[in-house]
């Protein structure tokens, strides 16, 4: 039982990363009906931005503000930077292609993804980069036999809190209603006086910013980043998004957490080598029963 709980907790932590990245996918998809393949790479770019801030500022930020202050600065810088990067990507790679339909958009997104990940490689090099150890809070909490690093706990709490905040924003506020309305029917929403541009700016800023946060947290938790980090996480997050039901905020969160827990339990109790096979089989099984994901709304296409 203890080991089960431990694995479950492991899964939740991994899952919270997936969920954070998945949120970005889902928000953009909800509004644009576009799988933003570059999202995973924006996540990686965020991780590198955080790294750069911590390396450059290792001397003074940490000294002035303490370790946690350094973390906060890195997070803010990465989120801002990647939020803006998200907007730039939208402007350069997506806006000129909107008219052309969905498939060219997907290719443009793939191209952007390749461009960003190789751009990271060109700038920071192909090797692994290590987050500076003295910038990472290193405390470890023990609950009996279970040990957990403080940064892991903070990651879990902050990401769950942030997801709750986004959920609240989208579901309970007027602006959120506008986002949802746009997701449902862009033309009608525009006719109702909703500024579509504003919504796009919102999703392309907040989505990547969330990804960047996940990226910095990944760096802090695991200490190691590499240019193609975005591919691994991007694919997982995309899986999570679909698992929950794409285009819907709670779906992304539940999908992410569920994916993490499934992976962790399967790897812990059955086999690591077959883990991804298992995850995809479960995904396919779920989609056969529920073609639009766990809590995806039924597509009621009007005929």
């Amino acid at each position: 039982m203890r080991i089960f709980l431990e694995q479950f907790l492991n899964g939740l932590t991994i899952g919270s990363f997936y969920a954070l990245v998945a949120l970005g996918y889902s928000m953009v998809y909800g509004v644009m009906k576009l799988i933003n393949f570059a999202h995973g790479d924006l996540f990686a770019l965020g991780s590198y931005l955080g790294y750069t801030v911590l390396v450059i500022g290792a001397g003074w930020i940490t000294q002035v503000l303490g370790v946690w202050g350094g973390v906060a600065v890195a997070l803010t810088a990465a989120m801002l930077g990647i939020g803006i990067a998200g907007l730039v990507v939208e402007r350069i790679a997506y806006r000129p292609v909107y008219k052309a339909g969905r498939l060219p958009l997907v290719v443009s997104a793939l191209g952007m993804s390749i461009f960003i990940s190789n751009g990271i490689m060109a700038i920071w090099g192909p090797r692994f980069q290590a987050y500076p150890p003295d910038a990472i809070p290193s405390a470890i909490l023990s609950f009996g036999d279970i040990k957990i690093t403080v940064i892991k706990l903070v990651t879990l709490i902050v990401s769950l809190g942030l997801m709750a905040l986004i959920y609240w924003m989208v579901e309970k506020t007027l602006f959120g209603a506008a986002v949802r309305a746009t997701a449902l029917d862009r033309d009608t929403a525009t006719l109702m006086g909703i500024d579509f541009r504003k919504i796009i700016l919102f999703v392309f800023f907040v989505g990547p910013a969330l990804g960047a946060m996940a990226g910095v947290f990944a760096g802090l938790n695991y200490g190691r980043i590499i240019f193609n980090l975005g591919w691994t996480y991007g694919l997982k997050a995309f899986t999570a998004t679909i698992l929950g039901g794409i285009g819907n905020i709670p779906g992304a969160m539940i999908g992410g957490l569920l994916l993490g827990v499934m992976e962790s339990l399967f790897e812990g109790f059955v086999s690591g080598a077959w883990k991804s096979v298992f995850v995809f089989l479960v995904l396919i099984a779920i989609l056969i029963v529920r073609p639009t994901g766990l809590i995806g709304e039924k597509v009621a296409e009007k005929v």
Partner: protein
Amino acid sequence: MKKTIVWLLISVLSVALLITGCAQPSTPTPTATTSASPTPTPAETIKIGLQAPLTGNFAAEGQWAKQCVEVAADLINQKGGILGKKVEIVIADDGSNPKDSALAAQKLISQGLKEVIASYGSSVTAPAADLYDANKVVSVGYGCTAVRLTMEKQRPYFFRTAGRDDTQSEFFAKFAVEVLKAKRIAIMHDNQDYGKGVAEDAKKYLQPYIDKGECEIVYYDAITPGESDYSAVVSQIKEINPDVWFFTAYYPEAALLLKQARQAGVTCTFVGNNSVPTPEFEKIAGVDVIKGSIHLNEPMPQFLTTPEAKEFMEAYKAKYNELPGSIWAVYAADALNALAAAIEKAGSTDPDAVANAMRTMTDAKGITGPLMFTERGDRKNIPYYAYIYNEEGKLELYWPKD
């Protein structure tokens, strides 16, 4: 639309500028003696190909290999070259995948090269080695350790400077049971070419001990490379609590795993294979984590006392201000040294003569020790050692201390 174009141009330009600006320090421009493309030089150079994964998943390894080979070439040229001619390295990227590997090989063959260093990764090397063989080009592998490359069939023109998976696995079995007195052994690989090969062989060489009841394998599974959170496996290892935890894959995963394991309170002895103890490993994991972990390796560069090793390391450090990032890259440099010695001995670059010289030479000295090859192309006498990280995070020889 025009606006878009302007935007686009600006952004592409700025990114390009950024790249060229930032990339300079990390990848220094090649020296005059080495060049990525065949330059019209007088006939007194000897061209040797280098096929390496400059892009793709093993891009870092490829870049290191390139740097090491270039340094080795510089050293050879400083001493007057081969047969009195300067060495010129012709580079082809194989993108860490088999298809590009075949194309890269074909490209080097088409340029008329007779001696080639190729390549990193066994499944990437295999199709290239076949091509080189069919076209009578001597190829020397540096990062390919699968047993099958030399044992499955005779490739008369294929050699490798790296050891074989099974040499290391055999050493591990003996070391774990007889030295560490391990009863319960966990073996973890990454389901890739190299890691799985070592793991399977380790299982094979442990079998006699298991039959005698001296030990048991309590865990045998794969992790997924490229992930960051290995807490699920770590929890499992913690639960199983083996005496020895043998990890057979690469340093990035090893660093994360060990770090997460120590944080979770796993205390068992960690044994890494020869891809683990690298500067990167130390950097990512940190001193507190790595101390006490044991790693199997051929004699490591910093423990090499031969003049060749010292000379090479000094030259490398002078040029790049650090030590080579991986042992495989050093093997690539030794592949060049082996080829140089063989050409010198054969007196020409004729592939048959060179291949013959490779098999028969006895006095070639490499950075990683004497360069001698078996009939099938494997390196002879690769000794293995177990190293341990001491309290300061420095490697010390652990066994055998002869």
